[in-house]
């Protein structure tokens, strides 16, 4: 007979209770071939999933908590924040959720869908907490939260809770299979945009770059040691219209040096569309400045 005052028994019972609370928020998104992804029932009529792993379709079949099936329409997707939003055609509502607090070393409970209406559970620590960051696809994520747990591919997109039961966000895979959290705050900010527009508009220059060292001889006039070399220019895009060419080395965008991208990405936010920016660049060893009018990044 287990001793009820045993701390492990208490911990285990608390975890069981948390899992029972979370189950109502977990849906499976069917992918065909017997595979699935996890969707988190975030609010009434709203299911969020990890954008990077969701096939490009308009309609999905869900398995709701308890095993009932439901059709869902894609409301929108944003690769920048890695959030996709589905709207089930029948009412769904999550259990009440409190906002969580990501503290380094806190317990983290991550849940996934088992594909048949049940849940799978994972436990780990909050391995790393950092400030806001920008994704490769241009989105701003409110906090860097890394978990030290393992996740199966089918569990990606499920909810994560802190030790106190507060909702931290949803899980997603970062580089090398590390498990990241898309924070609740980011999800809350993106949901209205996806409901209204189906996407999150972002400013776009139409350039692909590779990071390079500025050659020693040019550093005095460039005033910086590293910059972005243009490797391709999107045909008909803002930079192409401005006359940017492959091989140009862009030193600054709107006065912000390209040595650090975190100064540049905010200048390409939703409000930037239609505005003109100065591109300071090196071409054939000489400085030049071109003006480009920022356009909305085309849907991928």
């Amino acid at each position, binding site marked *: 007979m287990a001793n009820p005052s045993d701390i492990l028994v208490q911990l285990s019972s608390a975890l069981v209770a948390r899992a029972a609370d979370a189950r109502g928020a977990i849906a499976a998104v069917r992918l065909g071939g017997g595979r699935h992804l996890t969707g988190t029932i975030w609010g009434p009529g709203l299911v969020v999933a990890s954008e990077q792993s969701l096939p490009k379709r308009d309609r999905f079949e869900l398995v709701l908590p308890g095993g009932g099936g439901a059709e869902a329409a894609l409301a929108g997707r944003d690769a920048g924040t890695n959030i996709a939003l589905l709207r089930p055609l029948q009412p769904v509502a999550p259990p009440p959720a409190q906002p969580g607090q990501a503290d380094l070393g806190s317990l983290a409970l991550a849940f996934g869908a088992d594909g048949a209406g049940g849940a799978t559970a994972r436990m780990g620590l909050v391995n790393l907490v950092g400030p806001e960051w920008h994704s490769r696809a241009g989105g701003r994520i409110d906090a860097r939260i890394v978990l030290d747990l393992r996740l199966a591919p089918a569990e990606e997109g499920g909810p994560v809770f802190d030790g106190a039961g507060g909702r931290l966000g949803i899980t997603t895979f970062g580089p090398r299979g590390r498990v990241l959290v898309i924070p609740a705050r980011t999800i809350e900010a993106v949901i209205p945009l996806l409901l209204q527009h189906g996407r999150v508009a972002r400013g776009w*220059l139409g350039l692909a770059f590779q990071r390079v060292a500025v050659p020693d001889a040019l550093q005095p006039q460039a005033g910086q040691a590293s910059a972005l070399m243009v490797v391709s220019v999107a045909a008909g895009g803002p930079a192409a219209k401005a006359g940017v060419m492959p091989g140009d080395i862009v030193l600054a965008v709107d006065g912000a040096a390209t040595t650090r991208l975190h100064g540049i990405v905010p200048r390409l936010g939703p409000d930037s569309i239609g505005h003109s920016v100065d591109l300071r660049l090196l071409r054939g060893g000489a400085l030049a400045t071109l003006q480009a009018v920022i356009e909305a990044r085309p849907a991928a």
Partner: protein
Amino acid sequence: MREAAAVTVPRQRALRVFLSTEDAARCGAWAAIIVAAGHERAASSDDADLVLSDAGPGGEWLRISAHGGEQDPAGLLAADADAQQVEAALRAVAAGLVVRTPRAAEPGFHAIDEGEGRKLLTPRELEVLRAIGEGLTNKAIARRLGISLHTVKFHIESIFRKLGVRTRTGAIAKAPEWRGQTIEL
């Protein structure tokens, strides 16, 4: 001296592979590779040794999963991997190995590349590195770029120093990991 013990490599048995994709053309292509390699197509994932599926929102990745494997996905190839790569990857995963392509791009939600912790190459050094990768000699590189042999050697020394390698092969091997992402703005 004693004779070395005989080594036996088990004869390769046919693998049962389940194909999981909604793309009919891709399914047909995979089926052709599997049959040509002497494997069997399994009717369900339950009685398969391996599952071949596509991954990524646009199906950019070909994923190989092994039943009860520790690491999932055990195999990850570009969706356009050729028949030889797919067959080699299936065999390797069946033998308990983990397979990855050397391509720098990797699935997962990535932060934008701030280039931290890397010594950056200049545009000229990048051109020289690319030429080394194509197997060109110093003389041929000098001719292509219109610079002197001395300058080519100077650039190569600088590349080796920045990449922390001593040979051309070492530089080629390090290049993809070092190069980082293409940044799109």
